[in-house]
């Protein structure tokens, strides 16, 4: 049974720095455990000249399914891959057209290999136009899935994007740049560290609560974090505030 862990409050797996593929895999395993889901998969294509150039795949799927997928050339059939290349909006696998026999058989076989009966894929757009796809799958009934999906969709949009950034940095071989914060961001994080809400910080700084939230979200993202608690802790650790 999936659990809608509150990413905006609680602790989450570290996904701001990956040394190698073991880290990316471990991160996905931790996410599936935290959310009580079956699988998580990250796939990116940086659009290099060769077909397999710049492709990164990290998944918790079992070796038998991965082997089967590759042997049968399922990337040519998998409708998620086809849609993800051009899509910007999240994709619930239950909305995929399964009228074609090849597609029905593909999902049937995936299910037999323990992929799960529900799936959600989130397209990711980076600054350099590199595109990626973050997918989760699980087994549950349709009502539980609808509720779970509504709750976790924004959280996995954040997780997917931060995961993508960390992978891009890992593959470029660059250590993640130490984020530079503007004075305003430092102020906002400092007041958050004092336990102030965005509304209170806005009152103190004489700016709108929404403006505080806007700059806070920007700072969270640049620090490679997924929530405010995480960002405050990291800013303190790095001596930024």
């Amino acid at each position: 049974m999936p659990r809608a862990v509150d990413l905006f409050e609680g602790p989450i797996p570290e996904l701001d720095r990956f040394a190698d593929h073991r880290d990316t895999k471990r991160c996905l395993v931790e996410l599936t455990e935290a959310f009580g889901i079956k699988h998580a998969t990250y796939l990116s294509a940086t659009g290099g000249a060769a077909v397999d150039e710049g492709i990164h795949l990290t998944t918790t799927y079992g070796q038998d399914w991965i082997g089967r997928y590759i042997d049968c050339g399922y990337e040519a059939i998998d409708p998620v891959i086809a849609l993800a290349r051009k899509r910007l909006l999240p994709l619930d696998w239950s909305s995929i057209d399964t009228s074609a026999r090849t597609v029905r058989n593909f999902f049937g076989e995936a299910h037999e290999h323990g992929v799960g009966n529900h799936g959600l894929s989130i397209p990711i757009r980076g600054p350099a136009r590199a595109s990626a796809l973050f997918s989760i799958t699980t087994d549950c009934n349709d009502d539980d899935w609808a509720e779970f999906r509504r709750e976790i969709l924004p959280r996995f949009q954040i997780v997917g994007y931060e995961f993508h950034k960390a992978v891009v940095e890992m593959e470029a071989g660059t250590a993640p740049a130490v984020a530079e914060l503007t004075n305003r961001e430092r102020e906002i994080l400092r007041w958050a560290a004092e336990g102030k809400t965005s509304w209170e910080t806005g009152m103190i700084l004489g700016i709108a609560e929404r403006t505080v939230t806007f700059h806070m979200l920007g700072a969270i993202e640049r620090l490679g974090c997924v929530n405010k608690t995480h960002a405050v802790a990291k800013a303190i650790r790095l001596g930024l505030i």
Partner: protein
Amino acid sequence: MIHIVDPTGYAEHRDLLDQMFVLRAAHFHTRRNWRVIVRDGREMDVFDDLGPVYVVNADENGRVRGSLRLLPTTGPHMLADVFPDIMDGEAIVRHPLIWESSRFNVDTKAVDGWSRQSINTATGELLAGLFEAAELIGLRQIVSVYDVAVARILARAGCDITPLGKKIHPDGLATVAGLFAVGPEVTAELRARAGLMGSVLAKESALRLSA
């Protein structure tokens, strides 16, 4: 009726999008005299090449009467890449749950013969569709850059706007940015002011978004 069209729907909605680009040329080039590039009577820019999500208002006969364009701030977008001066030294904000709306237009010609109230309805419907879609996507905020005349229209329609950064004057046009609240209160306010009873999204768009 509001259509939400992302790249997976471009082919299916080719006619709507073509009308949209023609209306954008009429609105931004002919009427407002912006420095935009018009080719074959259609206005397009580099951001249209990035596979944006279009929010299109069309009447029951499929005639387009307004549109806007959505892009995630994690990728290239106008505030970061065209108007960074607005931020006045503050960092560009990128976040997967903050998207940018641009090329907002409601064509008064398309609603020719309508009352002033109908023009407002076309605007209200477009914005109600935008914020309904934003809620379904799970967005926290929407950011947008526009000129001061548009700021008044947006506020009158019922948007909840906080000004962002400073006013700039590209091509002598007073241009500002705003942060828009997303949530059920905003959607309800937009609907109330436009006299809308419920969802304005085309069935297929609603399905695509909640999918």
